[in-house]
């Protein structure tokens, strides 16, 4: 009877101790897992910060390019306008020359020499644009 009591008391005292040890091991394993995950996240975070800095520089460079191109387009506007006027003037003259070539042999000779012809499908210019081509 005494033996039974002693055995019973031993099993009661070793019960909670046996729970603490696996619990501690489990928590430790989970802590190690979490630490590895946190390290990985930290590395990813550093990488993303580096990428952010690079992208910031890239954005700065693109903004600068955009500004330069905008200025270049503006600078050329005067030249473009001048070119448009020149082209319109010549187009008008060559269109008149094409019209004249219908009745005049000399004008026809020049038109044929330079192969001046009206461009097809020009909706904005009903009279059509005359495009001169250099002699072959």
């Amino acid at each position, binding site marked *: 009877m005494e033996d039974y009591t002693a055995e019973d008391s031993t099993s009661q005292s070793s019960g909670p101790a046996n729970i603490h040890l696996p619990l501690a091991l489990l*928590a*430790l394993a989970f802590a190690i897992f979490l630490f590895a995950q946190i390290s990985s*996240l930290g590395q990813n975070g550093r990488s*993303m910060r580096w990428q952010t800095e690079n992208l910031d520089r890239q*954005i700065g460079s693109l903004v600068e*390019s955009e500004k330069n*191109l905008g200025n270049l*387009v503006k600078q050329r506007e005067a030249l473009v306008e001048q070119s448009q006027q020149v*082209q319109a003037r010549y187009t008008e003259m060559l269109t008149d020359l094409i019209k004249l070539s219908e*009745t005049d042999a000399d004008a026809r000779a020049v038109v044929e020499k330079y192969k001046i012809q009206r461009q097809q499908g020009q909706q904005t210019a009903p009279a059509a644009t005359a495009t001169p081509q250099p002699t072959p």
Partner: protein
Amino acid sequence: MPKQLISTATCSLAVLLSLWFLMSNWSNQSLQRGLQNQQDEIQTHQLTIQSQQQQLQAQQQLIDSASQLANQVGPSVIRDLATLQLQNKNQKIAILLKKYGIEAKAN
């Protein structure tokens, strides 16, 4: 008693690390969103630059075309017309040239 202390300490560590993990995760998600925004911004800038380059190209084509007309083809045509007008005394061509401010004179 020491075993209880060890298990409590490791469990507390695990809880703290869990919180740290969550915070790191949120921070990374925020960074990820920032990167995405920056990439969108870059794409927008690239599209604008592409459009400006096309505009420049169109301008250049117009300038080249006008330059060719004004420096090569145009003067040759006018010279030929003036020569024919003088040679054949062609009044129609003289009127045409005069309309555009050109007057042919024999040397």
